[in-house]
């Protein structure tokens, strides 16, 4: 049976910029930053309280993973905010919202009470969108 998620992939347009965004703005921890060839690194970060989950910041560049046509299409899709890869949780959404806004993170939805908890939406530096949620106690 499946027991847990260890790696997830977020496609980014620039690994340097993504590293800055995820560590300095979101406060994630850098786990791996290893050169794997020209213009590509194996770059992973973890949420501060979830070191067992590595989020791979994978570049949308032409190479073995993407041919030129796919890379171009992926770049457009990422930029346009097509992908919403994950939901992040926090203990206090209003404080987290204020902090991330102060650091320049772009929100597309301010915290709002929903039936499942309080949710806000923000974008990373590439265009991927994420939910920031404070779930209701079970």
């Amino acid at each position, binding site marked *: 049976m499946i027991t847990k998620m260890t790696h997830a992939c977020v496609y980014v347009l620039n690994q340097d910029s993504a590293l800055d965004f995820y560590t300095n703005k979101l406060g994630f921890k850098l786990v791996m930053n290893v050169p794997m060839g020209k213009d590509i690194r194996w770059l992973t970060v973890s949420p501060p309280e979830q070191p067992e989950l590595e989020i791979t910041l994978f570049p949308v560049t032409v190479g073995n993973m993407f041919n030129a046509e796919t890379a171009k299409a992926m770049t457009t899709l990422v930029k346009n905010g097509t992908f919403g890869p994950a939901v992040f949780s926090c203990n206090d959404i209003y*404080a987290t919202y204020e902090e991330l806004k*102060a650091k320049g993170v772009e929100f597309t939805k301010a915290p709002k009470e929903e039936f499942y908890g309080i949710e806000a939406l923000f974008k990373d530096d590439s265009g991927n969108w994420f939910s920031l949620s404070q779930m209701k106690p079970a």
Partner: protein
Amino acid sequence: MNKDLKSDQYPKIYLYKRIVQAKLFIDNHYKEVIDLNNISDEAYFSKFHFIRLFKKVYGKTPHQYLIAVRIENAKVLLKKEVSVSEVCYAVGFESISSFSGLFKRIVGKTPSIYITEQMELKSQMLNSPLDFIPGCYAEKSGWMKK
């Protein structure tokens, strides 16, 4: 929303901004000697009220949070092979013994052992990265052939 922050005295978002500003002040000034009394003054709270609200939001008192930020930044520097004494002062501690003691209590090992372990891990990652990368990504990226 945190019930303690539902004060009739201030609009709730104003309270959050004050607490967040105090947290960001610690994030940005942890290297310096920080007088937490000044932070509560700047946040326009009484010291007791400030500490209580800060702990409600972040789960730690401002002092505990400052120590945690210093230790986390110490870990980042130690991973870069900066010496223990340099790291101690670079992150705002004034005594190597108190830094080492706090580090061991929080991280579970001394700064020296932490450096050794991190260097070993870094070396393994650089020399054998495929031991750390899920095979599916490595294969699709064409790294398995190398």
